[in-house]
């Protein structure tokens, strides 16, 4: 019997277009990524020299208060009649999930202090004790 050796084709994976594929992937993810950001309210933060960065971002709750005294949490406006009560209830709900909650008060610099004081008292009541007043860095 006659055995003929078959010629073997060299096995090769074409790698020249690998980078093209990688870039396509990068572009695809860049285009489809949506960062979860809150709309919030329109306001100007006060400036402070002692401004510090906040470490734990996951535990922060943004509370927006504009100069008219409207309060917005997680893009929901608190009802105008009982904003402080609604704020307290909302805090209690969120505290149940995240006990080390840091409340970040983003207050317009022209807001009246009275309402902020009420909110702080409410926070003491519901035991949300970590508080940060959002400010901008003040350059000297």
């Amino acid at each position, binding site marked *: 019997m006659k055995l003929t050796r078959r010629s073997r084709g060299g096995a090769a994976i074409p790698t020249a277009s690998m*980078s093209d594929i990688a*870039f396509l992937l*990068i572009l695809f993810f860049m285009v489809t990524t949506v960062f979860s950001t809150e709309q919030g309210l329109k306001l100007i933060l*006060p400036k*402070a*020299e*002692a*401004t*510090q*960065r*906040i470490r734990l*971002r996951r535990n*922060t709750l943004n509370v927006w208060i504009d100069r008219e005294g409207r309060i917005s949490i997680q893009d929901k406006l608190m009802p105008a009649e009982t904003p402080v009560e609604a704020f307290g209830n909302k805090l209690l709900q969120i505290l149940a999930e995240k006990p080390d909650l*840091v409340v*970040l*008060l983003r*207050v*317009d*610099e*022209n*807001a*009246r*202090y*009275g*309402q*902020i*004081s009420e909110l*702080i*008292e409410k*926070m*003491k*009541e519901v*035991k*949300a*004790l*970590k*508080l*940060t*007043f*959002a*400010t*901008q*860095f*003040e350059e000297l």
Partner: protein
Amino acid sequence: MISFVKRKKAKADIPTASMADIAFLLIVFFMTATIFAREKGLTMLLPEKGEEVKIASRNIMQILVSPTGKVLVEEEDGTLYEYRIADIRAEVEAALERTNDSISVAIKVSPLAPYSVMIDVLDEVKMADAKRISLIPFSEGGGE
């Protein structure tokens, strides 16, 4: 007659070998240059309701803010003087030094005062490195 000689056309080629390098340089540049908007502000730790500690009044330095945004600071002898916001830091630092850091700063702001004045005062007190700061609601213990 002029003879037309066909010129040899050079092949037009864009070198693409370093394209990937350029792209990576761009990626690395933007990765290092990007700053994520980090949350920042003045941090405070509130006392629990009903757990307020009584402190002897001589260990408290009171700072009051009036509805119009005027700042009054209690001096050593217990009298109130109007201060400019820029001068508060030196005053608090002096008080801290005098009492060997045992003083607490109590900030009492009128509900009608603008929030920015309260932040300015709090900022000055924080810059003076006061450890014990409390925000006192105006209703408690009378006002002006």
